[in-house]
């Protein structure tokens, strides 16, 4: 009886405590790739310890296209279930109306962030999301194989093609029948838009839609870039690459079956992990260029944290976003997931440089990364991107030539644009 009384008292005390501390339940949604989920959970555990709030992770599929549709459904229904959304860099302009303006809440810290990242999240003077981490893809290459065959790290896509072919042929002759030259993201989804706009921009073919909204994608340089990419399918890249997303490409590269891979920064930490067959055998460099004198192009990626307008606990949610993006957590993410941080200072951190040597080197790449035309095309971006990846995917799978598909794409984009975006 005494015990029960004690227990009840303790329970009452605990309830009182949690009530007085104003502990609330929050939910954060993100699409996890690689180690994202476990690292986020660890950070949330610390947040829970500090504040007494509880935070639940809602996990999403790998494809950003799928995630975004689900977000739109929740937001259209004004769902109170989700407090914090992790939004793709391209999403801000399309769903800005559903998010809290964070400009004032973070006025004290916003100047510490990478300007390009903050800029990408400003819609009509409103800060839609606080940048969490960035993405600027790299060319992963097998250092050991390049050394073995006396090849240089390729500077142009043409060199990359030749080197990949040579090493692949030699390795296959030596009995490694599963070896491929190059893997990338070739499935018909947002990832292919990123890959293909890099090829085209680095050939001097311009952007899908220019920043001022004009459409100049149907040009010879763009066609040349796509023709080269088409020549990879079935030669240096497996035909299955036409259905590969990030993790499929990493699967092939990390099991040691590809000489080159185009992938985001997260793959570095995983391919360098203790259980990775290619640990210590690979390195990264900037993506090749299409022709001498052109600049390498890396798509600006990244995921940013926004607070839903329909959240029942916006203040706690804002506190959570601030916590997740503080120096210590960004540093931890940079080290554990090899994602480029959004705080300028973390790039200069000695520990980060020691653990992930490429992050400090990646600052200029991040600063000059190529944005997708999400700002110019506004709410039509998803459709623009879908038309673009369809044109590229058709070209790669041999359904029409690059020239034909680009001409068709131009017509479709013009029709989509109408009088203005």
């Amino acid at each position: 009886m005494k015990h029960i009384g004690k227990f009840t008292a303790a329970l009452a005390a605990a309830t009182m405590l949690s009530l007085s501390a104003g502990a609330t339940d929050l939910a954060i949604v993100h699409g996890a790739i690689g180690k994202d989920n476990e690292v986020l959970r660890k950070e949330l555990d610390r947040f829970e310890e500090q504040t007494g709030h509880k935070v639940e992770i809602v996990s999403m599929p790998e494809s950003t296209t799928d995630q975004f549709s689900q977000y739109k459904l929740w937001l259209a229904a004004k769902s109170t279930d989700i407090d914090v959304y992790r939004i793709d860099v391209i999403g801000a302009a399309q769903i800005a109306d559903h998010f809290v303006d964070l400009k004032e809440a973070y006025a004290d810290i916003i100047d510490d962030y990478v300007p390009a990242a903050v800029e990408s999240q400003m819609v009509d003077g409103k800060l839609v999301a606080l940048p969490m981490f960035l993405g600027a893809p790299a060319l992963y290459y097998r250092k050991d194989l390049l050394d073995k065959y006396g090849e240089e790290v390729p500077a142009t896509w043409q060199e990359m093609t030749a080197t990949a072919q040579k090493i692949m042929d030699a390795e296959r002759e030596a009995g490694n029948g599963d070896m491929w030259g190059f893997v990338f993201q070739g499935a018909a989804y947002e990832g292919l838009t990123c890959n293909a706009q890099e090829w085209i921009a680095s050939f001097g073919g311009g952007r899908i839609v220019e920043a001022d909204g004009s459409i100049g994608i149907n040009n010879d340089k763009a066609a040349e870039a796509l023709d080269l990419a088409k020549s990879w399918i079935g030669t240096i890249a497996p035909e299955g690459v036409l259905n590969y997303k990030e993790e499929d490409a990493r699967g092939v590269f990390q099991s040691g079956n590809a000489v080159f891979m185009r992938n985001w920064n997260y793959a570095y930490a995983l391919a360098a992990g203790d259980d990775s067959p290619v640990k210590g055998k690979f390195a990264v460099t900037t993506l090749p260029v299409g022709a001498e004198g052109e600049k390498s192009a890396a798509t600006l990626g990244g995921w940013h944290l926004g607070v839903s307008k329909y959240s029942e606990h916006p203040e706690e949610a804002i506190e959570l976003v601030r916590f997740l993006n503080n120096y210590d957590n960004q540093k931890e993410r940079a080290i554990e997931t090899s994602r480029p941080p959004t705080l300028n200072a973390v790039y200069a951190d000695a520990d980060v440089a020691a653990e992930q040597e490429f992050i400090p080197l990646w600052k200029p790449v991040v600063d000059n990364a190529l944005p997708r035309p999400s700002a110019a095309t506004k709410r039509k971006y998803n459709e623009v991107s879908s038309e673009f990846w369809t044109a590229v995917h058709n070209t790669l799978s041999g359904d029409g030539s690059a020239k034909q598909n680009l001409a068709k794409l131009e017509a479709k984009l013009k029709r989509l644009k109408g009088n203005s975006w």
Partner: protein
Amino acid sequence: MTTRTAISTLSRQRILSAWLFLAPMLVVLAAVALYPLARTIYFGFTDASIDFTSEAQWIGFRNYLEYLDYGDGEGEYFGLLADEGWWSAVWNTLRFTVTSVFFETVFGLVIALVLNTSFKGRALVRAAVLIPWAIPTIVSAKMWAWMMHDQFGILNDMLIRLHLISDPIAWTASPDTAMIAVMMVDIWKTTPFMALLILAGLQMVPADIYEAAKLDGVNPVRLFRKVTLPLIMPAVLVAVVFRALDALRVFDIVYVLTPNNDRTRTMSVFARENLFDFDKFAYGSAASTLLFLIVALLTISFIYATRMNVEADE
């Protein structure tokens, strides 16, 4: 005179109570089926956007067909009926439906005939056959996606070991095989359903007909064609209608298994893409409405056509 009014009062009461008993079901049906359907059809005639459905404006048939005059004597047709993407989706769906339902019926019939004979452990085999049907489609599609993977997939591994192919096939990625891959998975998954329905039909066939045929010395092929098949035909046709209905709105297998391109995109995938991925909620609603009309039309004409056949056979 008095008796007649008494009867009619009684029957009125019975009719009234019948409606009373039906009412809850009708209300629920109206709420969960009729209302959403009406909303979808309505949105098809507006310019609604998914996050601002309340601000939708009525625009008539412009989502279906609209002629835009450029003012210089030239012009272009817009809208679903002029959208080649939509028609390729319709074509893909029909191709998928006809092919997969055909093979499912043939395999289902064979399996049902086998299961109908008596052998040891028949109950166990009957249960085992149902396993593919019991697995949720998303799970089986994902499972097959791994089995068909071009680098790690077991399917390629098996075919190469058997020396049937020399290089791995990118089943789901290659435009030549993507639709075949989708059909393979669908046939694998729903043949048990067909087999089950046909088996039920087979068990309705009276055994004495077979005994009589045996006494008359009818050969098995003739027996099957002249006796079994006509008798189970109604069951087969019902099964075919069910499957065709299901196949016409196929979504999950295509969505999980193959890249999102014109080769495999079906009507449902097309509608979903416009509804949720693009900012074209109204256009997607119009596509859903057309999908509904096409399925309704095909079903009605199929039922009509087959009923004629069945009657002719009798």
